[in-house]
């Protein structure tokens, strides 16, 4: 293996050169440019895979899926910042599935460091390892990585496009490129002559792209400032196209019913009743499920329900209790990882008070507002695919497999996502839609799942149990020894995506638990993998979603055992360990006017989680209204280093918090006879207008590296609420959902 220094140097050099050419970082064999996925037509110049200019205008390609996080707007702003176009002059499209759009930031996240403590060297190593994303075709929207990933690459794309257009203008005007400037989609000559980019596109296509330095942040016009979201008017007028809105000539509509005993097969079925129902065109045997193609979605849903199916059993214990017994069994085996092992946790130091607690959280569904939906058209050995998905290259591969086609024979069109939260990083719904469309060649078929089908066939946030032991002395935490047990969604997801069994230490299992910035001298965290076959996957904030609850509820318990204010207790352990984290706690203390005291009938809780590179602190206030508890107010402070669009970051922060609070209050997936018991929103509810708190968000910018925004708002919400309920009632929330033990407003 070459020295790390050499790889870093080459990556840095090649990185910027390759970016200008429309590709990415490179090491060794990945140095060659990935093929440009945009085949420019006559009169167009594809300057690189992120910008397309023709006579009609400028189109920017945002290679990440817009699932509500505002990425479409911010990616466009990154390009426009260097390209000198007005945001309202350009069209922004989702990029097609292509290796050139790999996610370099996501792989960097996989390194076994804690994140907040990374040195510059490790940070660069993370960047260098990003090339692996390209090898694996990791065009993924997830892990709150979009901005970390796009920050440099998009601006380089814009800068290169600008300089190349200037060169084309220079040739035409017979002047030196350096004498030219750019403004609002035009090259401007010293004598005031203006030539539109659209006029220069053809000439620019004949030139080698030119590399240019990035502008100093002091010159930014868009970045760091809030932009009107480019998808907002569409979404306020019902004109935004989601997967379920794709309409094609001659289209048919389908719905599926897969084995509710997840992973079990199908012994047989009787579809005689369904076949004679109105509008039904075809029943499709999917091997472990059935589908009906009809003239509209509702007729298809009704007919598919009318099929009498004999299902095989599930490959896991059929009842929730037995499933959690299996999770507890994992504690008896060796840990899969011990990512933190500081000092000595073997003995509780003399004079210290020992605290132990066991926590448990349920399986959770994603419950995106738009149920799983995709459209496919199979004809002449090609497949066209439309859907909202977080990983177009994987989708393309899997859909091609299902159709028995080469990946090049599949076009993936990414629509807006009616919620992602990790669910649309899976490809099961695309594969099923493809198999169904194969049954009707030449006809576009849209497959929409019922809400019940969606909720009962998810890749769930795994249920998890934690056993925590700690010690406090002289008002300080001096020992934390924690173990968490759950299924590994990483191992399962790797297996689904690559076909190879995932293995090795799973950082995700313990994230949010091992890597929190508290200076506790004796600190050990182990992860135990439960051997269960329930489908599990990435749910907004992933491992942090349960570990944040475990860690921060336990911190609260330790603070109380130490007789300390829970906010001050945390702050003291954090100040020297990670200043930006402490800054978040100080901010919510000030915003909420935290005194550690609350009047009768009011409770307040604080929690903190460092995840996806972003520390987030939250204070939540609950009120008792005649015996019914309402979440009244929330204060959030985050520090993601550089906030490219502050108002959008605020929306992500409070949205992430609401998602977490919904789960904390009401979210629970349970099993009976091998089937998920919840089917629709009445039994899997979420916060609503009257149960959602008022919220105030502060965005700090002191962190050294850019953090994520989409997920870090979720983890601290659950413990902050639990801690507030403790403050109000004196009853400690050690299990979720909270509506089982507290009389919450519904």
């Amino acid at each position, binding site marked *: 293996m070459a020295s790390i220094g050499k790889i870093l140097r080459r990556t840095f050099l090649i990185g910027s050169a390759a970016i200008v050419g429309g590709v990415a970082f490179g090491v060794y064999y990945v140095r060659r440019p990935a093929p440009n996925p945009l085949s420019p037509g006559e009169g167009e110049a594809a300057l690189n895979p992120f910008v397309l200019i023709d006579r009609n205008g400028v189109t920017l390609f945002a290679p990440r899926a817009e699932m*509500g*996080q*505002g990425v479409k707007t911010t990616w466009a702003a990154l390009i426009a910042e260097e390209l000198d176009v007005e945001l309202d002059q350009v069209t922004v499209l989702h990029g097609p599935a292509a290796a050139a759009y790999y996610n370099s930031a996501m792989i960097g996240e996989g390194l076994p460091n804690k994140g907040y403590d990374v040195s510059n060297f490790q940070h660069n190593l993370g960047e260098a390892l990003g090339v692996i994303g390209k090898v694996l075709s990791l065009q993924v929207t997830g892990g709150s990585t979009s901005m970390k990933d796009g920050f440099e690459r998009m601006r380089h794309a814009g800068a290169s496009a600008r300089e190349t257009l200037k060169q084309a203008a220079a040739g035409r005007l017979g002047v030196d490129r350096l004498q030219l400037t750019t403004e609002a989609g035009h090259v401007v000559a010293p004598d005031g002559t203006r030539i539109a980019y659209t006029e220069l596109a053809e000439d620019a296509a004949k030139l080698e792209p030119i590399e240019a330095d990035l502008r100093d942040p002091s010159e930014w016009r868009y970045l760091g400032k809030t932009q*009107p*979201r480019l*998808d*907002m*008017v*569409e*979404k*306020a*007028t*019902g*004109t*935004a*196209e*989601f997967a*379920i*809105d794709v*309409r094609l000539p001659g289209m048919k*509509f389908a719905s599926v019913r897969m084995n509710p005993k997840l992973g079990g097969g199908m012994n047989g079925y009787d579809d005689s009743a369904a076949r004679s129902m109105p509008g039904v065109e075809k029943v499709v045997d999917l091997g472990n499920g059935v589908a009906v193609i009809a*003239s*509209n*979605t*509702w*007729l298809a*849903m009704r007919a598919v329900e009318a099929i009498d199916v004999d299902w095989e059993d599930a490959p896991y214990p059929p009842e929730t209790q037995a499933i959690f017994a299996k999770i507890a069994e994992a504690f008896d085996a060796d840990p899969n990882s011990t990512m933190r092992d500081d000092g000595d946790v073997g003995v509780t130091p003399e004079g210290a008070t020992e605290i132990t607690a066991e926590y448990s959280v349920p399986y959770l569904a994603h*419950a*995106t*507002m*738009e*149920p799983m939906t995709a459209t496919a058209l199979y004809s002449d050995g090609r497949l066209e695919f439309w859907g909202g998905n977080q990983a177009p290259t994987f989708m393309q591969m899997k859909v091609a497999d299902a159709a028995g086609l080469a990946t090049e024979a599949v076009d993936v069109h990414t629509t*807006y*996502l*009616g*919620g992602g*939260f990790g669910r649309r990083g899976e490809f099961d719904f695309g594969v099923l839609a493809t198999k169904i469309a194969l049954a009707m060649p030449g006809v576009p078929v849209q497959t929409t799942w019922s*809400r019940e089908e969606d909720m009962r066939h998810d890749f769930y946030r795994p249920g998890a149990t934690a056993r925590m032991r700690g010690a406090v002395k002289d008002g300080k935490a001096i020992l934390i020894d924690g173990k968490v047990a759950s299924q590994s969604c990483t191992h399962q997801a790797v297996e689904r995506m690559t076909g190879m069994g995932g293995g090795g230490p799973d950082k995700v299992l313990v994230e949010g638990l091992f890597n929190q910035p508290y200076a506790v001298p004796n600190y050990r965290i182990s992860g135990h993998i439960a051997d269960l076959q329930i489908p599990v996957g990435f749910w907004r904030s992933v491992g942090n979603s349960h570990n944040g609850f475990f860690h921060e509820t336990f911190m609260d318990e330790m603070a109380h055992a130490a007789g300390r204010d829970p906010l001050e207790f945390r702050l003291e352990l954090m100040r020297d360990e990670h200043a930006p984290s402490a800054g978040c706690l100080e901010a919510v203390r000030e915003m909420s006017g935290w005194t550690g005291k609350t009047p009768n009938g009011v409770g307040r809780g604080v929690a903190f989680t460092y995840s996806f590179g972003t520390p987030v602190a939250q204070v939540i206030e609950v009120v008792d209204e005649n015996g019914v508890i309402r979440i009244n107010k929330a204060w959030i402070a985050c520090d993601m280093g550089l906030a490219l669009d502050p*108002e*959008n970051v605020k*929306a*992500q922060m*409070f*949205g*992430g*918090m*609401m*998602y977490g609070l*919904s789960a904390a209050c009401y979210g629970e997936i349970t099993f009976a006879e091998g089937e998920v018991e919840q089917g*629709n*929103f*009445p039994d899997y509810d*979420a*916060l*609503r*207008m*009257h*149960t*959602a708190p008022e*919220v105030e968000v502060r965005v700090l910018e002191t962190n050294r590296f850019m953090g994520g925004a989409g997920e870090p708002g979720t983890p601290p919400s659950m413990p902050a609420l639990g801690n507030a309920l403790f403050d109000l009632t004196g009853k400690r929330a050690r299990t979720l959902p909270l509506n089982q033990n507290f009389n919450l407003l519904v």
Partner: protein
Amino acid sequence: MATSLTINGKTHQVDLPDDVPLLWVLRDEIGLTGTKFGCGVAACGACTVHIDGEAVRSCQVPLSDVWGEVTTIEGVGTPEAMSAVQQAWVDHQVAQCGYCQSGQIMQAAALLAANPAPTDTEIDEAMQGNLCRCGTYPRIRAAIHTASAKMKEA
């Protein structure tokens, strides 16, 4: 037998079984996809439309029961000519994934038509049937207050 429906001021003849819900008539037959499917059991509000000005869950209204003129999100305003409510949604940058927002806007528009200056409690009551998994509620509330103020000026 074909059923005659008036939707956004236009008459449509629909030849479908009586029990097909209005939601699917709008989406799959007429091609008005702004109205969304979320749950099919009137628990999320994504499919909210107006019938004679009243906000209803179109997933629960069979074709044969459509008792009046239907207005969908497409009939409230267009990208070129947005209604005051839609403009307030844009001003407050409400939407995230955006999937539930057609239903939210239809519910809010019906509220404001009946009650031009709703209090927070009245907003809570009117909007609690509309689910948003992205948690955009604070901005929805603010947008309703803004739309109310704008409509008062007009």
